[in-house]
């Protein structure tokens, strides 16, 4: 399946322009052939949790208005970066666009869903530190269990077994 290039930007809500604290609230993207997608999560509860006096309705309305402007400008200019800078110019407003990223996709709508998941929804879920190459727990347990003699472990699996033995001891 052929893939097209696309550019994207993450839209951030800056609650207090003086402190600059912000949260990602949406993504916008456009393919090289001019197709356009935007996503905002169905719930902005984490914005409310982080900033209790934020108006979620205002944020949502503001995003939708920006989205509409961007889509129109994209048709006029044909340039995503330019349209984005016009639709959301740098100012003291509370929505900010990130620098552009880019990717390849055969389905722009699916790419939009993936970006929404990666940059916004996933932050609401627990991450597992699965990418650190070892399960530190068993090694940590061994290090703390100074009374336990370290067995001859030449790989992670052996460490895990040693950890189980440690727990049983």
């Amino acid at each position, binding site marked *: 399946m052929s*893939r097209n*290039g*696309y*550019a994207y930007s993450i839209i951030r809500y800056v609650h207090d322009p003086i402190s600059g604290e912000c949260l990602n609230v949406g993504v916008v993207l456009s393919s*090289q052939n001019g197709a356009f997608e935007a996503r905002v999560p169905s719930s902005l509860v984490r914005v409310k949790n982080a900033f209790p006096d934020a108006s979620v309705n205002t944020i949502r309305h503001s995003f939708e208005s920006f989205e509409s402007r961007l889509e129109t400008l994209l048709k006029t200019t044909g340039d995503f*970066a330019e349209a984005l800078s016009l639709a959301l110019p740098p100012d003291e407003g509370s929505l900010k666009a990130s*620098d*552009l*990223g*880019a*990717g*390849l*996709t055969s389905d722009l709508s699916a790419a939009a869903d*993936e970006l929404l998941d*990666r940059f916004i929804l996933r*932050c609401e879920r627990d*991450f*597992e*530190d*699965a*990418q*650190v*190459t*070892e399960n*530190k727990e068993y*090694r*940590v347990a*061994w*290090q*703390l269990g100074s009374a336990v003699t*370290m067995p*001859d*472990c*030449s790989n*992670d699996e052996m*460490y895990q077994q040693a950890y189980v033995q440690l727990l049983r001891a």
Partner: protein
Amino acid sequence: MLEIVDGERYDSDAEGGATVPAKMGCVRADGQRIDVFVKCSWAQCPPGGLVREVVGCLLAQRLSLSVGRPVLVRLPEELTSVVRQIAAGASARMQGSVKPAFGSIALGPGYLRCDAIDPTNAVLRQSALEVWAFDQLILNVDRNARKPNCMTKGNVLAVIDHEKALNVHMVGTFIQPAPWQDEWLSDPAHLFHGVAMGGSISLERLHGQWASLQPADVEQILSAVPESWGTGEVVEGIRAYLETLQQNIDAAFRNLLRVAA
């Protein structure tokens, strides 16, 4: 063999590193999407640096130190072309790099740059000690106060960036005595030099793991370096060093304990 993933999305350049890794979304063979810091070969990071990354990461992994999981990253021309429109520098690095590029899977959120450890945390202290010893033996001069190349979260201390390790050119000469030689001294600029000095330390676990390495283990690590990188000479130099280190590993650990005493 290292896992090979496909670059699919360029997010931005990573901040702070001289080698300017790219933060990228990549796809595994099974379709899973992962975040990867992709390091290309270019003027600030020659192919030999990527070899050192591969070997340093895999060796750390084999010794049960926490490290970002290394991968190789295919960078399709069509992606390089798209990235050119928004980040010319990143695109040029991707274009000019050896293929596949080197990548390190992102550790995940919540990791902070480790400038120092809490000395009352016994777990972190032990991990820092082992990182110190590891770096002395792989000749890593790139983990210091200015560039910790070390991330922490809770009780985990994860090391990153090994492109300046295993520079074996002058090792064994009077300029740079090998870690097993009597004249050897540790690097006082190392981030965890203070942790290692002046206290009772135990390197029993790391020593045991290192001593258990077999020639086949070293061979397996070195064979992960892609032939397409054309770095055979660098690999051979590292192979010779690691083999000699292995033959002298007890002396090297005695030296570590000596300088720390």
